[in-house]
């Protein structure tokens, strides 16, 4: 299932409902709700923060193919922003050297099995695959 959401932080509540509907429609364990919400929120909020020039909505697609859960976010009329090339965060730094930003993509990478990025016709597409446990 797929749906477009307004490019604003306030969309997160609607996105969370959308994730809930998807889990219900596929009879998936509600335990997945946390990780799917986090993955989608981190990528969506990045698009809201960094692609302000676009007036287009962001499309979110959730699907299941066998044991694969596929999450896709499509951002229209934007400059390229390849999340797969973002540097790793050193999470072992002491408190005084830690910054609030930069953790989102790091967390997403810990929660999925594969991330692909595609950019064409001013359109960014991030596709993430999470393997479902038996």
């Amino acid at each position, binding site marked *: 299932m797929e749906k477009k959401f307004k490019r604003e*932080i*306030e969309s*997160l*509540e609607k996105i*969370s409902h959308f994730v809930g509907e998807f889990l219900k429609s596929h009879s998936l364990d509600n*335990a997945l709700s*946390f*990780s799917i*919400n*986090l993955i989608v*929120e*981190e990528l969506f*909020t990045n698009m809201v923060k960094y692609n302000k020039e676009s007036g287009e909505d962001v499309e979110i697609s959730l699907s299941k193919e066998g044991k694969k859960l596929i999450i896709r976010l499509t951002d229209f009329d934007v400059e390229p922003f390849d999340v797969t090339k973002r540097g790793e965060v050193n*999470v*072992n*730094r*002491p*408190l*005084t050297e*830690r*910054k*609030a*930003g930069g*953790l*989102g993509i*790091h*967390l997403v990478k*810990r*929660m999925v099995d594969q991330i692909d990025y595609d950019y064409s016709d001013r359109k960014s597409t991030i596709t993430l695959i999470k393997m479902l446990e038996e």
Partner: protein
Amino acid sequence: MLHIRFGENGEVHLTGRFDASQVDKATEEFEKITASCTLNFAELEYISSAGLGVLLMTQRRLNDSGQSLKIVNLNKNIRDVFRYAGFDKVFEIA
């Protein structure tokens, strides 16, 4: 939606979802914390990096005056996120 309640015993109780839409409200509430205290996450269902950022900035501010936050009753998902973010090394967790 996130609810923050300051308990009589000095504990701060968080309830609901701490996502990016709650950062402004949470930052305002967390600025009221000026001494070491315990954050009780028993009713907190969800936190993203935006919420972690508010916790980190509060811990840094308190740390400057020798104070700190302790966090208790984290659910499994939040405990995992803390570990992935290395927050288990900058917060006392019980």
